[in-house]
């Protein structure tokens, strides 16, 4: 090969880290102004939507609802939303075929969405991060095996697998968490592996290795903190992905079993009524759209804020 590599320009790196404003040793001057600039426009509306449509309902469902999410009043079946003819404030968003209040079910559905995404991301992140760290840091055959596993799991037809497992052992909360966790660990592993590879080459890790620090210590004290920001961003964005995946699987009957008010199940329940009682399917889907959209906006903002490398690419 030709002499493609030029000596690295140390001076350039120094100026860059000062300009960006996070030198590792010394804190730069005018920190506050830079901080405000880095924070950018905080997406308050999106954060508000995530709180109001997902997190607060999930936590407070029992306190803020008056109807039963599972059992309805048959006499009130297919009641329209309050602003329509025959609608009433008793059922603000109407009722379904069994006379269950749509709003109440959406509120309880938030609990399902939040629990499923929280658990799967926790499991997926722990497995994915561990394997990614090992693969990126040690390289060699460990890396080869982990990369192969990542490739394999990314090549699996997820929906089909979910259908098979559910057909065999029936739908349940545990099944859906396991299926989704299996599909998302690979994205964590791939990302963490890549980041670890680059952090490994950095000067302070090299220094720690020369100083004879044990690998486990380097991984936990040096590498992990350095990829923490990436993990936070990835986890935030994955919440939306998991909510979409869970609701899709629930929609086709391979997720949360009836009569639990998963948003996907609710959309499926109203599918054949869409022409007349459109609200049964429409509102749960709208809840998914709003939450996932807001999560994406928050995730994008977090990425800009926490990951200046990506920010420099000129996103706005």
């Amino acid at each position: 090969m030709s002499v493609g590599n030029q000596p690295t320009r140390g001076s350039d790196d120094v100026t860059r880290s000062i300009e960006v404003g996070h030198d590792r040793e010394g804190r730069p001057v005018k920190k506050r102004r830079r901080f405000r600039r880095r924070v950018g426009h905080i997406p308050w509306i999106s954060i508000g939507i995530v709180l109001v449509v997902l997190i607060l309902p999930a936590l407070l469902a029992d306190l803020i609802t008056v109807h039963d999410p599972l059992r309805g009043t048959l006499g009130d079946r297919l009641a329209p939303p309050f602003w329509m003819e025959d609608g009433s404030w008793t059922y603000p968003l109407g009722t379904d075929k069994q006379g269950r209040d749509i709003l109440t079910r959406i509120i309880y559905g938030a609990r399902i969405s939040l629990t499923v995404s929280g658990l799967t991301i926790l499991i997926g992140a722990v497995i994915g991060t561990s394997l990614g760290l090992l693969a990126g840091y040690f390289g060699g055959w460990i890396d080869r095996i982990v990369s192969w596993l990542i490739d394999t799991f990314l090549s699996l037809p997820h929906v089909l697998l979910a259908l098979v497992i559910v057909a065999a052992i029936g739908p349940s909360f545990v099944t859906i968490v396991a299926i989704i966790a299996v599909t998302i660990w690979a994205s964590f592993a791939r990302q963490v592996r890549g980041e670890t590879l680059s952090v490994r080459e950095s000067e302070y890790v090299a220094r720690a290795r020369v100083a004879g620090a044990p690998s486990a210590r380097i991984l936990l004290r040096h590498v992990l903190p350095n990829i923490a920001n990436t993990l936070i961003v990835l986890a935030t964005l994955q919440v939306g992905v998991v909510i979409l995946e869970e609701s899709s699987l629930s929609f086709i009957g391979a997720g949360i079993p009836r009569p639990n008010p998963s948003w996907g199940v609710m959309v499926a329940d109203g599918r054949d009524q869409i022409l007349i009682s459109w609200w049964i399917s429409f509102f749960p889907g709208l809840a998914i759209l709003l939450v996932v959209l807001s999560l994406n906006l928050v995730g994008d903002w977090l990425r800009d804020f926490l990951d200046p490398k990506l920010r420099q690419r000129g996103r706005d």
Partner: protein
Amino acid sequence: MALPVSPTQGSVSPVLEVSDLRTYLYTRWGTTKAVDGVSFSLDPGETLGIVGESGSGKSMLALSLVRLTPEPAGRIEGGQVILNGRDLLSLPEKQMRAVRGTEISMVLQDPQQSLNPVFSIGNQLGEAIRVHDSDAGKDEVYARSVAALKSVQVPAPERRLRNFPHHMSGGMKQRIVGAMAMAYQPQVLIADEPTTALDVTIQAQYLRLLKDLQQRTGVGIIIITHDFGVIAETCDRVAVMYAGRFVEQASVSDIFDHPKHPYTKALLDSRPKTGAKGERLSSIEGQPPSLADLPDGCRFATRCEYAMDRCSLEYPDLVAIGGHSVACWRSEEVLWETS
């Protein structure tokens, strides 16, 4: 040291005349006066150095001359850039494109980044020829590409044309970029920080190459740099830029021996004495003013050891003093102290 290239002063008309050029950047955080009323001229075969700290606006000045300020933030707000009797700033974009690469060329500071990684050298160099001469056939483009590479002393040019940028060293890429810039023998060549990205031995080679090209073609060169070492080796005249304006302009020997602006003096004093080139000019106390929030008076006043009350109130105009053009209320005294 100044080279013995002596442009015959006065007898030829300048090839490039810039007057009162102003380029502002409009960002979310305010308007930045990156170039704020700059005037100068360049004779054929002359080399003008423009020196300043980073953030002084010198790179924006270079981009303004070819009308390639970053869109949409950068806008040229006024002034004239007269090349071959035409004001480039008032040309329609299409005609301006015809001027770029033929009458005025520019080489960028980082040769590692200046070539597109996914196209061969032949493609990129050939394009520089084809774009201005759509009639040129395949063979002609090839022949002229080979000739262009030869003119910048690239060995085995035929093979190089088939190569991709990642095959080459930084010095080689810099030469190829030079060959593209010189493909049409322009009258003006702008070199933005031509040496920062190169190591020391290649720097010297590259500067020699530029001078060699100049002697053969008579091109007027503008070198943008923060490095007085480069100025001393290659330039005839120097303009010192600070916070969007020229604060002093003179011949190389005058600047080095008798700087008249306190800023020039401070810059020269801050040079490493051991002769190591490429050091950043960083040892002047304080920081340049933010170009978004400029004081009324002299922009150097807050960092200047000679500053007096008047300096922070009124901006000094450029005045001619003993072969210098200098913008300082106390230039006479500074001169007296340094000589």
